[in-house]
């Protein structure tokens, strides 16, 4: 198991490294002048040059790349934000955890809802429940994530007033520690709606996969036996049959995580959730390249982290994969 984890970790780090390189050259080679935001007409050419030198933009490209790598890997220094005039990591630091939490909550909701309803839909094959649940999940998948967010805010936040419409906690809240910051009812109330929106938007894949897997399991002999024994249906579905159907669903977890985190960007914007996604949109709007670049790399890192977790979960459920 140890070598499996080490191998996957190494793969992820290599991918991350390649991604950092890709993003770096992408930002430098595309036709947008990063200093355009800070340069105003009154500046003399020498001042402009000094500004560019300050941000290291006057050095040759490969030197910039080497410096960038050294700074990021050795010091965790992503540079200075053009907009905030602060170190990038200071700007993004606490946003990483916010995005991870939202991402985890979203995946948990979508997969738990998906597997529970999918299993039930397979059990009730050909019923209105099955057709209805598939149709609803597909409708959620067809709808853009941000639009579902807007509609839910309309209904649940404004009309019904059940949940707050934006943010991560009430204004004026002072947190005494990291634990305090996240483990409280106010935070959960703020987390629920965005996570639900993301979860419903992505519920179709696990639901359909679980249903398909269960359809095959339901015909097996041990289910016949359980039925003959007179066990209640929910017991048969969830305690006996579902376990065997879970494997293909968990496989899809790794693939769907990437898509989910990508969609979280939109949910964060709609709910003003202070995470990496919203930050990358803001940074892109302001041409704040260091922040946009770093946020992008960090989002990719979060995706890889969750992929790794998904792989570990799969290895736990199906130990055969470890020895492949």
């Amino acid at each position, binding site marked *: 198991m140890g070598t499996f984890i080490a191998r996957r970790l190494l793969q992820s780090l290599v991918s991350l490294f390649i991604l950092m390189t890709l993003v770096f050259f*992408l930002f430098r080679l595309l036709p947008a002048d990063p200093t355009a935001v800070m340069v105003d007409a009154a500046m003399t050419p020498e001042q402009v040059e000094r500004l560019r030198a300050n941000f290291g933009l006057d050095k040759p490209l490969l030197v910039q790349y080497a410096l960038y790598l050294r700074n990021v890997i050795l010091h965790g220094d992503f540079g200075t934000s053009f907009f905030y005039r602060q170190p990038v990591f200071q700007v993004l630091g606490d946003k990483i955890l916010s995005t991870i939490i939202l991402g985890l909550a979203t995946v948990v909701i979508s997969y738990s809802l998906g597997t529970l309803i999918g299993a039930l839909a397979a059990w009730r094959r050909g019923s209105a429940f099955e057709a209805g649940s598939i149709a609803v999940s*597909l409708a959620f998948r067809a709808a853009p994530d941000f639009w579902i967010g807007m509609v839910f805010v309309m209904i649940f936040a404004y009309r019904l007033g059940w949940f707050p419409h934006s943010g991560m906690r009430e204004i004026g809240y002072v947190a005494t520690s990291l634990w305090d910051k996240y483990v409280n009812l106010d935070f959960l109330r703020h987390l629920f709606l965005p996570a639900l929106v993301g979860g419903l938007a992505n519920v179709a894949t696990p639901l359909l996969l679980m249903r398909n897997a269960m359809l095959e399991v339901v015909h097996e002999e041990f289910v016949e036996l359980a039925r003959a024994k007179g066990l209640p249906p929910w017991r048969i579905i969830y305690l006996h049959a579902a376990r065997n159907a879970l494997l293909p669903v968990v496989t899809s977890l790794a693939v769907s995580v*990437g*898509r989910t985190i990508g969609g979280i960007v939109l949910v964060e914007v709609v709910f003003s959730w202070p995470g990496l996604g919203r930050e*990358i949109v803001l940074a892109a709007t302001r041409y704040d390249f260091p922040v946009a670049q770093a946020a992008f790399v960090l989002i990719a890192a979060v995706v890889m982290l969750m992929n790794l977790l998904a792989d570990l979960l799969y290895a736990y459920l199906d130990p055969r994969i470890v020895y492949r």
Partner: protein
Amino acid sequence: MTLNAREMLRLLLRDRLAVAGLLVLLGFIVLAVFADSIAPFDPMAMQRVDGRIARMHPPSQQFLFGTTDYGRDIFSQVVMGSRIALQVGILAALVVTIAGTAIGLVAGYYGGLVDTILMRVVDIAYGIPFIPFVIVLVALMEPSTTNIIVAISVLSWRSVARIVRAQVLSLANRPFVKAARVAGASDLRIMWVHILPNIIPLALLEMSFVTGWAITSEASISFVGFGDPRSVSWGKTLHEAFLAGAVRTAPWWVAAPGLAIVLLVLAIFFITRGLENVINPRLREW
């Protein structure tokens, strides 16, 4: 069992949901083509009622879907927006399918080093989160419809390539390919004449998938504000709605464009599902 085009169409038409999807898609295409005539007003023009700007009017006989905070007719915006949605959807899907199929074909047929390199590239592409990458790309380039199509295409080909390659791998070892090679056919000829026709149904299926995905992606990009400023798109209407606080005050502004997106993408989903049942006999529900 491979089917020819007419048999595939006949089987497809038996699927009621797919037929419904086709009709809706056709409806949207007609809407887009004749948008200029169907839209009652200029989508970007401020409408006036009794000399005053028609701000935030709820749906009425005159303004079927209501008006925005600048008095623009939402119905006209939704009608005109169908053009961008279909343009981006179909063009991006075409580019992605052609590129992805070509790469999958080459990788699967030649195998070896070529395959490994190409698949490594695909793996890297898979590691890149889609929406953030597209946002970054469109922000770095000038936000125009063409650039949006490019940005969407740059990543979306990865799934087509993978699936086509898998299919090509299974085909490349079949007797008929070996026979062609023995007969002296060149690699290009084998790929083009023998393998490609068997790939086309799968490629079309993937193209169908990508179309829905491209439409949603374009709406998402426009929603965060990086859409083409000169065009009218559903995402852009929702962007303006969000900024104006319509979520609190003008539900019609939020509902109309969103429902249009849902309708179109669902129609494409059902067509795709129908195609999938036709192409993959194992899934067919007798």
